[in-house]
């Protein structure tokens, strides 16, 4: 086993060597511009791009013409949300503004920030609050829809806690009401079976670097029929990607994206079972060894490979310092200027102290049982070390509820 151990696959993944292999010829041999329609270099590049389009479409049950290449999921989210809002905006402006959008407070910033911008530009946004389990249901969305709702954007699986929303159900509600439905599926696609037809999705974002592909390339699924979804382009200049996203295509990146999708299609089933077993071992072992260890988010509706655990009375950043051989992330965000803990964990209505005490561990294609065993021991040791230092753990052991104390906040 090599140290350090990588358990931050929800941030980014190692590019699969098979993907790199597929990309390499497109840098030095097949280096044409895929938009060059009148020579062999262009045709060869285009062939690579179109194969990748089929591979990406096939992973999600779509047609190749429904895939728009972007620079990543952030751009896909921006194009989907702003593009749909601008296309379906009420003109002239209605009484409640240019139109109503429904999203959720624990979405990724790449969804929250475009929605905030639209709010400033005259759209009305409903920010759904999930319960303590972090799951957004079809009923919640149905309850928020209005006459003037034009767009719903709800992520498939949450990037910090791994909870899974009822996408087929939310999609069905939107379809019935004639509302465009976008989902940020960055953490979901490639890890879990996806079928945009059965799952009632109109627009869907994902990125290459989360599925063992290259960074800097993403895709947006745009439904073409039943119903046809139209978008206002956000980047103009040449009309590439059927006018929805101009700019010379990143051919090697796209080829790598396609190869990554093809590998996921092939290996997803066995991979998710293997990772689920490892994640359950990690969670169960930590919970059995220590008290006040909480897995955040819904107990069952969650991604196989990702867990978010709070270790009571221990601050997350100091915990990460004690397990420096394990690359992971914390909800404590103590390094940020605001000193605010994770808005996702706060959004569940947990106390801030639980958010400060959390670790996110995300497994991936090369995670081994040996690494999980090492992580269990290392985390256990670090938590014990820090609890021996923790005045809060003493208070807890004296039977004092720390949430009832009047702390001197300053």
């Amino acid at each position, binding site marked *: 086993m090599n140290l350090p151990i990588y358990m931050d696959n929800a941030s980014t993944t190692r590019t699969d060597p098979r993907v790199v292999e597929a990309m390499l010829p497109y840098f030095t041999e097949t280096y044409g511009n895929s938009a060059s329609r009148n020579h062999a270099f262009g045709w060869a590049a285009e062939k690579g791009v179109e194969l990748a389009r089929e591979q990406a479409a096939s992973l999600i049950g779509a047609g190749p013409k429904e895939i728009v290449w972007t620079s990543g999921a952030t751009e896909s989210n921006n194009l989907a949300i702003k593009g749909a809002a601008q296309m379906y905006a009420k003109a002239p402006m209605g009484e409640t503004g240019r139109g109503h959008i429904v999203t959720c407070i624990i979405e990724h910033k790449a969804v929250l920030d475009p929605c905030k911008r639209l709010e400033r530009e005259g759209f009305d946004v409903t920010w759904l609050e999930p319960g303590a389990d972090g799951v957004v249901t079809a009923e919640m969305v149905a309850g928020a829809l209005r006459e003037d709702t034009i767009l719903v954007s709800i992520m498939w699986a949450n990037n910090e806690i791994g909870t899974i929303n009822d996408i087929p159900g939310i999609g069905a509600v939107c379809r019935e009401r004639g509302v465009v439905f976008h989902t940020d599926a960055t953490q979901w696609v490639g890890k879990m079976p996806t079928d945009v037809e059965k799952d009632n999705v109109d627009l869907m974002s994902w990125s290459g670097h989360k599925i063992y592909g290259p960074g800097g390339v993403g895709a947006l699924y745009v439904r073409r029929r039943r119903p046809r979804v139209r978008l206002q382009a956000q980047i103009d200049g040449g009309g590439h990607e059927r006018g929805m996203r101009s700019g010379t295509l990143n051919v090697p990146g796209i080829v790598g994206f396609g190869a990554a999708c093809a590998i996921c299609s092939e290996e997803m089933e066995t991979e998710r079972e293997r990772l689920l077993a490892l994640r359950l071992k990690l969670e169960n072992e930590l919970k059995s060894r220590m008290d006040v260890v909480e897995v955040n988010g819904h107990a069952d509706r969650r991604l196989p490979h990702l867990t978010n655990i709070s270790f009571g009375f221990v601050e997350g950043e100091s915990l990460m310092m004690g397990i420096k051989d394990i690359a992971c992330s914390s909800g404590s965000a103590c390094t940020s200027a605001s*000193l605010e803990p994770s808005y996702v964990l706060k959004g569940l209505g947990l106390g801030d102290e639980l958010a*400060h005490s959390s670790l996110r561990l995300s497994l991936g294609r090369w995670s081994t049982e040996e690494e999980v065993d090492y992580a269990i021991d290392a985390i256990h040791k670090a938590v014990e070390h820090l609890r021996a230092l923790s005045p809060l753990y003493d*208070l807890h052991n004296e039977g004092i509820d720390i949430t009832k104390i009047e702390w001197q906040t300053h």
Partner: protein
Amino acid sequence: MAYSEKVIDHYQNPRNVGAFGSSSEVKDRKDVGVGIVGAPECGDVMQLQIKVDDDGKIEDAKFKCFGCGSAIASSSLATEWIKGKSVDEALEIKNTRIVEELALPPVKIHCSVLAEDSIRTAIEDYKKKNGQVVDSAHGHDHSHAH
């Protein structure tokens, strides 16, 4: 973020960890002053206990800390620095000296402020218990956002 070697050393080998008794046990002890500063929701709580001899000298100090590595190091360092000093000398310790010693980056300056606060709060507690005048005027940088 990379930590300085001194922060890592204090984190791995914290000095003077502990307490002279639980909060109820030390509450009425006149030779012990207690300072608890910060709040769990802010991600930092420091508890400093000082034991003062008849001449007003801090003969021993113990700390506990819930917080990041820099917070742990700041409070550990504070116990080292105040031991053997008179209470009035200990009040002279400014957070900027802790920042220098531990090479704390700007985002971690609040940890040193909390350590200074914990020293002052513990000394005030000791003075109050012993009927001494507490000089509440103190100046340090509170401009950081919490």
